[in-house]
């Protein structure tokens, strides 16, 4: 087809115009693109760079190593030991079912664990290691390592787990750790992020729990570059955390081990406190249990007996238990009267075997009565009527106030769980708590540590130490933190008349060393180790008038849980007090028969710094004690005797 030239020229001119127009529009649009580029890359660059960093950088926590716990001599009480687990990374494993099948042929995996691991592996991100089985032995780790070529993606991993080498000896002191529970997190106002690390362990009980902040340490962090699916590409920065502080306790593991062994078979508690410093040399509650069972979850087969036992092994009787102090309280009543100047030490009271107050008969433990008794006699023979009389003169308020000064009815701050403050009753307390008025009979009962009065073995030991020294000895459990000695609390004079205190100590000496004393059979005859003390027997039941008429039933004839609690408090050496001790045997019967012998044994052990010489015991007892010492040597774990683990 032909076209004329003019037409051609015209259409080409139009084409050129439109081409220029369209080209111009395109360039204009490109200008817009450039402007947008400039806006994003120059004007907004800082903001986007910030967003980019947030995108790719992920902070991971490195769990800190928990501080270890030592006894006063550097023996390990809680340590971290490597534990092994088998993990699998799905993307490395390839055929997960096949690899799992092979793994189960190499090491033993129970069906439940197997199924759970399989589900977890398939649910997790392919590059994340999933724990197949926990707490495997070194043997099994070796088997897995040897078979590594057949087990792609399967590797053993090492972690740290808490172990208590002293087992049950320190369950009631050191306590235990466990997995962080939701309850633990809820209890904290601002939980440390490190607690959210899977498998992280937190202190659950006693020192482990109360000193959690010291022991835990601070988590390290590593900055890692991650991609959009969360896979770690490389590590950018690493900041090491700080391990938890190592704690040293005041307790002597050797003594503690002996005490626990001595108490075996009883439901009892012993506290030995250093009179100079307030350091707790032993704080034992029996029966105990092995805290290692709880690490990683306790089975109900192990747990149920602990829960159901009438001896209540899970309860720390030294601080949690509150018992009527019984006759061990008589020193307080006496001191209240002496300090008030209401009696002189030589004033006597006639004990006919009972005292009638407000038409009610209050009996002395000795039906026939003690006759005329002074302060010394009354304590030595534990005459009740003498103290009924004192209490009526002094009044309950003064007695309770005096008890508080000796550390009763007061919560001693220790790094232990559930420290009980006991109870020293006052009129106001009874009105508030019971809604009834104080009656004179309450005062009479309180004077011999019955009625409403409650004290823990720890408080009784502190009371005894204060009596022995005249200073406000304050218990201490944590000796040093990371090698830094912790300050001693208390130790200042009680500001009591030294003559009165000496009178009490002399009376307590007679309790143990006078032929007529209630604890005479538990005396120590070695010079420089002689003990002073006081027995106590606290009733857990009311003795009816009818029973009293036909004769009080003997403890041995009663069912265990209705027998009296046996108590003893003492200190030694008498003239230069070094240790104060309190012994409580739940439903043990009489303090002189059940508690005082234990007190003598543990006191001698403490003073001798090991097995005491038989010469310290009265000749008649030596044969029996020799047998007992041999038996106890077998019961105690070997390590506790020779202290081979000393650091």
């Amino acid at each position, binding site marked *: *087809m032909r*076209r004329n030239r003019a*037409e*051609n020229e*015209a*259409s*080409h001119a*139009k*084409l*050129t115009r*439109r*081409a*220029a127009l*369209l*080209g111009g529009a*395109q*360039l204009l*649009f*490109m200008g817009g*693109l*450039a402007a*947008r*580029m*400039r806006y*994003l*890359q*120059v004007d*907004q*660059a800082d*903001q*986007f*760079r910030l*967003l*980019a960093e947030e*995108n*790719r950088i992920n902070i991971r926590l490195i769990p800190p190593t928990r501080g270890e716990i030592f006894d006063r001599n550097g023996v390990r009480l809680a340590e971290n030991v490597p534990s092994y687990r088998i993990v699998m990374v799905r993307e490395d494993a390839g055929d997960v079912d096949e690899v799992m099948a092979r793994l189960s042929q190499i090491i033993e995996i129970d069906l439940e664990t197997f199924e759970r691991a399989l589900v977890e592996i398939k649910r997790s991100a392919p590059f994340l290691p999933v724990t197949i089985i926990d707490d495997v032995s070194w043997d099994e780790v070796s088997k897995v390592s040897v078979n590594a070529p057949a087990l792609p993606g399967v590797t053993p991993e090492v972690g740290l787990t808490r172990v208590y080498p002293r087992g049950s000896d320190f369950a009631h002191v050191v306590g235990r750790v466990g997995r962080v529970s939701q309850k633990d997190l809820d209890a904290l106002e601002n939980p440390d992020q490190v607690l959210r690390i899977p498998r992280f362990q937190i202190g659950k009980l006693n020192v482990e729990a109360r000193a959690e902040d010291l022991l835990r340490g601070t988590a390290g962090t590593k900055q890692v*570059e*991650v*991609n*959009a*699916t969360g896979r770690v*590409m490389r590590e950018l920065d690493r900041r090491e955390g700080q391990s938890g502080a190592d704690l040293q306790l005041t307790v002597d593991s050797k003594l503690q081990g002996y005490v626990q062994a001595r108490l075996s078979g009883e439901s009892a508690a012993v506290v030995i406190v250093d009179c100079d410093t307030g350091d707790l040399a032993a704080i034992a509650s029996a029966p105990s249990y092995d805290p290692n069972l709880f690490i990683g979850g306790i089975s109900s087969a192990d747990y149920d007996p602990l829960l159901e036992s009438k001896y209540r092994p899970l309860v720390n009787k030294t601080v949690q238990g509150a018992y009527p102090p019984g006759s061990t309280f008589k020193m307080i009543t006496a001191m209240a009267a002496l300090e008030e100047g209401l009696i002189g030490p030589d004033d006597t009271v006639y004990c006919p075997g009972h005292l009638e107050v407000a038409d009610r008969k209050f009996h002395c433990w000795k039906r026939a009565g003690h006759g005329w008794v002074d302060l010394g006699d009354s304590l030595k023979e534990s005459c009740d009527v003498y103290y009924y009389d004192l209490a009526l003169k002094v009044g309950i308020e003064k007695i309770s106030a005096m008890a508080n000064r000796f550390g009763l009815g007061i919560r001693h701050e220790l790094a232990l769980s559930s420290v009980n403050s006991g109870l020293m009753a006052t009129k106001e307390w009874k009105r508030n708590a019971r809604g009834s008025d104080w009656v004179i009979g309450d005062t009479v009962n309180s004077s011999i540590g019955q009625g409403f009065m409650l004290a823990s073995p720890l408080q009784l030991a502190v009371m005894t130490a204060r009596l022995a020294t005249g200073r406000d000895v304050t218990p201490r459990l944590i000796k040093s933190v990371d090698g830094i000695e912790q300050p001693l609390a208390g130790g200042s004079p009680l500001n009591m008349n030294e003559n009165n205190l000496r009178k009490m100590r002399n009376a307590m000496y007679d309790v143990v060393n006078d032929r007529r004393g209630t604890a005479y059979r538990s005396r120590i005859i070695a010079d420089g180790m002689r003990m002073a003390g006081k027995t106590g027997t606290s009733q857990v039941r009311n003795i009816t008038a009818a029973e009293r008429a036909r004769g009080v039933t003997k403890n041995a004839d009663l069912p265990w849980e209705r027998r009296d609690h046996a108590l003893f408090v003492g200190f030694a050496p008498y003239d230069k007090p070094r240790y104060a001790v309190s012994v409580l045997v739940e439903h043990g019967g009489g303090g002189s028969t059940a508690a005082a012998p234990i007190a003598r044994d543990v006191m001698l052990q403490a003073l001798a710094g090991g097995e005491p010489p038989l010469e310290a015991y009265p000749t008649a007892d030596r044969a029996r004690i020799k047998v007992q010492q041999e038996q106890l040597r077998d019961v105690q774990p070997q390590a506790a005797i020779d202290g081979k683990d000393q650091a």
Partner: protein
Amino acid sequence: MSYLEYTVKSVPTGFRKILHLNWPLALLLASVCGVGFLMLYSVAGGSFTPWAEPQMKRFALGLAVMFFVAMVPIWLWRNLSGLGYAVSLLLLVAVALVGDARKGSQRWLDLGFVDLQPSELMKITLVMFLAAYYDWLPAKKVSRPLWVLLPVVIIMAPTALVLEQPDLGTSILLLAAGGGLMFLAGVHWAYFAAVGASGIGLITAVFASRGTGWQLLNDYQYRRIDTFLDPAADPLGAGYHITQSKIALGSGGWTGRGFMQGTQSRLNFLPEKHTDFIFTTLAEEFGFVGAFSLLGLYALIIIFCVVTAIRNKDRFSSLLTLGIALNFFLFFAVNMSMVMGMAPVVGVPLPLVSYGGSAMLVLMLAFGLVQSAHVHRPR
């Protein structure tokens, strides 16, 4: 004009044609492809596999195709344009019937030795066919309704087929390129005004139809539009691509983080980092300077094409060159707008830079046509 009217003698013959190629244009194309290799090497984490090396091979093949196409006289191509259009259309129909579905859409045809995306081919053949049509059509008939309707049908047939795949991006490109060519050919303003008005009407209809029984677009297309309008509304879901893309781009700053130092694209925060979103990697690693330079290269390619088109007295050659340039422009303009958050994510690659065989070969073929038009221009 038929080829008989050329002063054939003045057109170079044989190997002398090589000397008369538009060498600056070829050099520009190679530069852009070079940028592509660099970026593909970077997003693979400093490796020629899996993208940079195949892309280089395709470029070599594309270069050969371009030279071959350039050697063939432009009038021969004009005479083949009808056939080309028909074949492309048939292939689109074939894709609709037996095509390979990838990522939820049916775009590919497995020819045994190569996976072909017929919609890519259609971008060129449509422009060729329309250029031939307007070359054939006397200038005075251009704006007559019947002669306007015909090219509209020519454009709408492939557009509808591509939209059906569904490939919103390519269908928009086809529509825009076709419309652009009609505009260049001199169709009256009034038609474009009418189309513009009805376009607004259509958009209104598209939105009004949402959620009703006669919904005009797929749900995913609506979501993309939503995402475009407000990417912040769903930063981890639908808006993720755009948000991440802008973060990568913006964090480049003036001079970028340096070659292979881009964190966002290499760490997979970006989707399709080697195809549709490769521009963000460039912008992140080389900053505003790098991104602007690439835009400059593209602009130069457009300018060279427009200039050679205007100088060319042959109507078919002019229209074809301008059409191809327009197509090329639409490619990168849509892609860049998309990654910079100025347009919906429609799935258009960055021409000559994004990884992809079909697009590369078709573009090189198209520039071969431009070269042919340049070499065989009437003198």
